[in-house]
């Protein structure tokens, strides 16, 4: 457990600077240096008069999975909200300015509702057996390769492995340089290409 600062609550009383035994709170980026922070020490957390410092757990408890009945309620609602979200988002692309705003806000609202449903099915954090099952089923690679001819979904496999390694070792992932085609969603991992190898678009976003 290490300490982190919620900068929107911080009132710069700086009690944390005086109380921290290692100087972890004294940084220039507004955050607390997790490397210097003593595991579970919480002196700064208790000292802060604005409740701006909290402890981040490396592992959150699994919420557990709901009964079949609740699972059915939430997944069927998820299906409906997800459908609404993607249809509204797609419609926004070809709409006039006011309608574009209307559709994008409906999409966003339904995205929030759909994500809420996913969390209520028990899938809040990726550190679960069910996420590992998803990765080993290769369902995501297959979905991706269905969209792109002649692509086996290797890039998605590389990303998922990098995610799994981090989860198993209970740490952040290693940084991966990736480029995403904003037109078709194709992912390129080995250096920025001139144009998208799939759709030849030049709008490639660096991630």
């Amino acid at each position: 457990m290490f300490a982190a600062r919620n900068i929107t609550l911080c009132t710069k009383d700086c009690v944390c600077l005086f109380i921290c035994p290692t100087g972890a709170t004294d940084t220039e980026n507004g955050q607390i240096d997790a490397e210097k922070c003593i595991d579970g020490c919480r002196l700064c957390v208790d000292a802060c008069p604005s409740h701006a410092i909290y402890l981040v757990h490396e592992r959150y408890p699994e919420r557990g999975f709901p009964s079949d009945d609740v699972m059915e309620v939430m997944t069927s609602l998820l299906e409906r909200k997800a459908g609404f979200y993607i249809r509204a988002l797609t419609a926004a692309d070809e709409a006039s300015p006011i309608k574009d705003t209307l559709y994008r806000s409906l999409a966003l609202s339904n995205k929030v509702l759909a994500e809420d449903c996913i969390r209520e099915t028990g899938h809040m954090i990726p550190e679960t057996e069910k996420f590992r099952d998803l990765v080993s089923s290769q369902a995501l690679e297959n979905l991706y390769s269905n969209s792109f001819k002649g692509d086996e979904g290797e890039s998605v496999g590389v990303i998922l492995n990098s995610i799994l390694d981090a989860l198993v070792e209970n740490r952040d992932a290693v940084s991966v340089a990736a480029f995403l085609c904003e037109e078709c969603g194709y992912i390129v991992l080995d250096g920025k290409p001139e144009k998208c190898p799939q759709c030849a678009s030049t709008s490639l976003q660096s991630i």
Partner: protein
Amino acid sequence: MYSILYDSKEEVMHMKGSLEGMIKTDKNPLTIASLVCSNFEQASQKQKRENLSKLFALLARSFEIQAKEKVKDSGKAVSEEELITDFQKSIEQDLQTAYTEGESRVRKEGNRGALRALTWGSKVSAIQKSVLKRYLKFGDELLKGDQAIHVCQACGFIGIGEAPPDICPVCKAPSSRFTTLAPKRR
């Protein structure tokens, strides 16, 4: 005979409870894949794992774009009015059946988290319905002058005005949790 039916239902439920099942049984698996990844993106942010969060964001964004392409390819062309009517029908159906039935089932279980999601969800759906109704009545006059649409990132509430509300009327989140969407003005 009863037991056979029960068994097959169990099997479907088992698939539905798994992420793989949720993705595979959906009509648009790409959208669900995107939402599962964007949810994990947010979870990783809470744990201050920036790179992990970025990888989930990358997958979420890629699947979202693919899902949009799929809608464009397979969706039949509908007029703007038909689309809005479809949205209204979908919300109406949720309000009349999905939420009311769901609520009684979830209440029986005493699952407070799911009950909260349904309560907020039905309020937000009712608001979506009224926003669409207002659009059909006022057209582009829905947003006058400097008015914009503000969406609460915590519950999905939609408000129209120059600024977001101080406190979300549905979930009580402060105005800082709102995302503002404004039309591109000429």
